[in-house]
Every structure is written in structure tokens, then in C-alpha cells.
């Protein structure tokens, strides 16, 4: 329905505050992954006629009884998407730091 709105909101926040986040956290990786997924999912939703180019833009908004279902989907599926991407980003940052550390400080025998 509109699950991509949650990661999109998260991506907007992280993109706005990207300069305030430490550089070693590689926030650009998170932003790129988020925006890539959001753009592709938006296309999928347009093709499935869940997004329209006229108000209220989301087809579920036209039926008031479906709004709670949409909000639930945004929270559960959208929230899980955001957590999954953020988890992979954290894993990538952790691995890259580990690899760099190994290269700079090789283990002494």
C-alpha cells in the first residue's frame, strides 16, 4: 500500500542531518541504500496503481476504512524495511572498520 513511506521519511531525516553525523559512520552508504530502495518501490507502487498523480495520491486514502490497514502496514513492513537496511549498514560499517584496522595494524607473530 504505502510501506515505502517509512524508509523514505527515515532517509529524508538522515539526508538532512548527514553533515552532523560523524564521517566514520559512512552515513552516505545508508542514504544511498535507502533512496535506491525507496525510488524502486515507488515505481512498483505506481505500476500497481497504489500511488496516483492526483490527490490524495495514495489510492487507499480514498477509502477511510482502509487507512488504519495502511498505517499498520507502514509501521510493520516499512519499519522492518528500515531496520533491515539500517542493520546491514551497521554491519558494513563494522566490517569496513575491522578490515581497515587489520590492514593498518597487521597482527604481529
Amino acid at each position: 500500500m504505502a510501506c515505502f513511506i517509512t524508509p523514505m521519511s527515515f532517509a529524508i531525516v538522515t539526508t538532512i542531518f548527514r553533515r552532523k553525523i560523524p564521517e566514520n559512520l559512512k552515513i552516505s552508504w545508508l542514504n544511498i541504500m535507502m533512496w535506491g530502495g525507496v525510488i524502486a518501490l515507488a515505481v512498483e507502487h505506481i505500476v500497481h496503481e497504489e500511488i496516483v498523480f492526483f490527490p490524495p495520491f495514495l489510492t487507499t486514502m480514498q477509502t477511510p476504512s482502509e487507512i488504519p490497514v495502511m498505517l499498520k502496514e507502514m509501521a510493520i513492513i516499512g519499519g522492518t524495511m528500515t531496520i533491515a537496511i539500517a542493520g546491514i549498514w551497521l554491519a558494513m560499517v563494522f566490517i569496513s572498520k575491522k578490515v581497515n584496522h587489520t590492514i593498518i595494524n597487521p597482527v604481529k607473530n
Partner: protein
Amino acid sequence: MLTIKDFIYYRSTILIFLLPKFLNNSRIFPCHEFKKNITQEKCIMWLITTTITAIAVTAIWYIKPKTYKLDILSLMLWGTSIMILVDHILGFEGGEFILLETEGLITNGTLLGIIMLIPIFIIWEILLITSKPKQKVVGGK
């Protein structure tokens, strides 16, 4: 002279376009068989298409020079793959996992997968052109 790296690069590019077509007609994901019983294609081909493209682009990124900004493209594709996977896992309502009904303007899952990739490739090309990598590759200042 064609090097091994160039050969892998061209082969990967061909695979991006041919593999979804092969999978669609193969015994692994035979979408055409399900068409007999339902009116619309049920295979989640756009997940398969995006993941294959992400794997191929990551492989090319590892081989080719970093001036092509393939890291950005592969990150965007991996982000898309993860989001689609989560969407399908949580939206799964029993039955066979690989089957999900497709509705809307496009009923062909493979075509939808390719269309979903178009804006990502456009953004990557804009980033690539604005960073002027050609000068770096050719050897200009």
C-alpha cells in the same frame, strides 16, 4: 586486446538482461505454467531481477576502475533488493513463497523488474556524468 576483466564485464552485462528471461522459461521459476490457472503472472520476478542485477553490478564494481561510481549503483540495487525481500516475507500469506499475484498496469514480473531499475540507472548516470569521469579515464586534467 580483450582482457579477462573485459570479458567478465561484457558477460555480466549480457547476463543481466538474459538471465531473467531464462528463469522465466526454465523449470526453476516456470511462470508460464502458472498462467494456465490464473489470469495474471504470479512470480515475483522483480525481486529476482533486482538481486541478479545487484550481484552483477557488485562483481563489475570489484573488477572495473572506481571512477565509474559503481559502488553507488550497487548500494542502491542492494537497498532495493532488501526492501523487496522484506516486503515479500512480511506480506507472505501462505502457499508457495515464490508465487505472488501481480496486479496493475504491468502484469509481467520481469518487465516490472526492468522498469523498476530504470530510475536507479538514470540517477547513477546523472551522478556519473556530473562527476566527469571520462576526463579521468582518458587522462585529462
